[in-house]
């Protein structure tokens, strides 16, 4: 297959189209505006739905409406604007709608700036919406993975009828890499038994989250958590790199894994026994894998382009079996290969 040179943003947008996205609803924010720009052209050419929404709040609720009819629909946004969508993400999780949200992180808090950052790990995996709910979160670290995981986002959203976030960052969104646009590899999931398609030759259907009857509300939340258990059992994905006999395992997610790998190669050449574990699904988190590796390694080092967010999940998973160190900065460009290699060597000395 021929390779195309493209940016993370364009890769995500084209992959969404290939995945059969019926509707894109969005509001511009750097560093992901190119997704909406690309979609405004391509979706109209394909005569699919495209709306330049008046706000991110409107955009996510347009996606809610579209997905309630079984349409494949998405929005994309960034950091402070994803914050605006939290209420609706809670509704969407409660309503069990197959919404895809592409979240391209910029540096925060507040307006922050458009530098690459991973400061929204907590926002994506824990979330700011109300109540007990979970969102599937996939984190690419290459432009090729932007394509592959966009496909997977649509598939998992449909398969589990659950909101799914593709969590990228400004670095990945703006950089170009050669990629292959393979076809959407997943089966189509039937929407016939739940989607709002008009009450013709069947009873009317309602999708809502209000639960005045206590027992019904309890049952609904329990149903959700049974589903989350299935997701946790079946959908964990991670990348392991040189973890065999590693005394130190560096763990990270997303784009910084690229520098971590280079640093590991440098350190291996110097004879240091170091490897990498990269969660690809941030929820479900690869807890069992950490527990398994904790039996053979001496230490974990979590590296993030933030002040320490995923490290909490790593510590919960490792549960005190071995030490878990943290190295990070709130903005990614300061985490060079040399910085990371120096930190690895410092911990090994």
């Amino acid at each position, binding site marked *: 297959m021929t390779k195309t040179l493209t940016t993370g943003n364009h890769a995500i947008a084209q992959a969404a189209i290939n995945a059969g996205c019926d509707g894109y609803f969005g509001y511009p924010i750097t560093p992901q505006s190119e997704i909406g720009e690309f979609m405004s052209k391509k979706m109209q050419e394909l005569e699919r739905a495209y709306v330049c929404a008046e706000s991110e709040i409107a955009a996510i*609720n347009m996606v809610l409406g579209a997905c309630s009819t079984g349409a494949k629909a998405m929005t994309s946004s960034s950091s402070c604007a994803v914050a605006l969508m939290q209420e609706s993400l809670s509704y969407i999780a409660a309503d069990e709608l197959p919404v895809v949200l592409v979240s391209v992180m910029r540096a925060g808090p507040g307006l922050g700036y458009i530098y690459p950052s991973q400061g929204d790990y907590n926002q994506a995996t824990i979330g700011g919406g109300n109540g007990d709910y979970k969102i599937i979160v996939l984190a690419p670290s290459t432009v090729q993975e932007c394509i592959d995981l966009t496909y997977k986002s649509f598939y998992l959203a449909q398969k589990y009828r659950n909101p799914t976030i593709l969590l990228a960052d400004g670095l990945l969104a703006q950089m170009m890499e050669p990629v292959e646009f393979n076809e959407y590899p997943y089966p189509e999931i039937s929407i016939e038994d739940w989607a709002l398609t008009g009450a013709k030759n069947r009873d009317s259907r309602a999708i809502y989250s209000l639960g005045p009857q206590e027992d019904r509300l309890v049952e609904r939340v329990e149903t959700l958590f049974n589903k989350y258990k299935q997701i946790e059992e079946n959908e964990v994905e991670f990348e392991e790199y040189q973890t065999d006999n590693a005394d130190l395992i560096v763990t990270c997610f997303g784009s910084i894994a690229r520098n971590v790998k280079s640093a590991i190669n440098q350190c291996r050449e110097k004879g240091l026994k170091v490897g990498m574990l990269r969660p690809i699904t941030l929820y479900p988190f690869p807890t069992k894998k950490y527990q398994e590796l904790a039996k053979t390694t001496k230490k974990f080092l979590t590296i993030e382009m933030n002040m320490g967010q995923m490290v909490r999940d790593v510590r919960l998973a490792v549960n005190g079996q071995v030490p878990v160190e943290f190295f990070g900065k709130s903005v990614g460009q300061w985490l060079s290969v040399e910085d990371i290699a120096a930190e690895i060597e410092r911990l090994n000395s």
Partner: protein
Amino acid sequence: MIKTTEKSVFKLPKSLKAGMKFPFCAGCDHGVAIRLVAEVLDEMNLREKTIAVASIGCSVMLYDYLDTDCVEAPHGRALAAATGVKRTNKDKFVLTYQGDGDFASIGLAESLHAALRGEKVSAICINNTTYGMTGGQAGPTTIMGQITKTSPNGRNEEYYGYPIKIAEQVALCDGTAYSARCSLDSIANIKKTKEAIRKTFEVQLQGLGFGFVEILSTCPTNWHLTPQESHERVRNELFQVYPLGVYKEV
């Protein structure tokens, strides 16, 4: 020998769920408004292609009454959700049923932008000049001087500013095909309201643009009036501030 014949003079519309009961307070106009919506859905044969969007407030449990497919939107976002439904399902009939707080306070941006985009959907807004479900606080349509739980001395300019004229605002949007204000205070006005609802549905089916009807309604519980006094208030006080009429028709 007396010969009797039976003739059905009153029945529930098919678009209302069989056996459903409105839970509204005595004298509240919500039940009348929803029944009118259901009657027009029946008469225009729209039930099977309808996807309704419920909002937050006393309007929320629309899916318990209407026998159509229905999705609940977060507070104020009914017309964003309706936009998403319609844009991906152009062959479906899409309506929202909202209160004035949902439509014109928290959801004003979503409402007016749906009208500006000329979304081919129909919106019904119940204006009872208060937040009914939360117990009667001041809302965007609370009229000057009106006493509510959060305007104990009456709405004044200094603390609250002025009420919004919804039907007039919607009429100003270029994408609006029909905007009217009606009332349910009399048989004659109920009939007019039904015709306005029909019109909002027709402009959607004809692809002309956004269809809107604001319905002045009662909230006897929070107004602390009897049902009869409530309709008198609609006539004596609200008609002055919110004149009935068609504000736009293309």
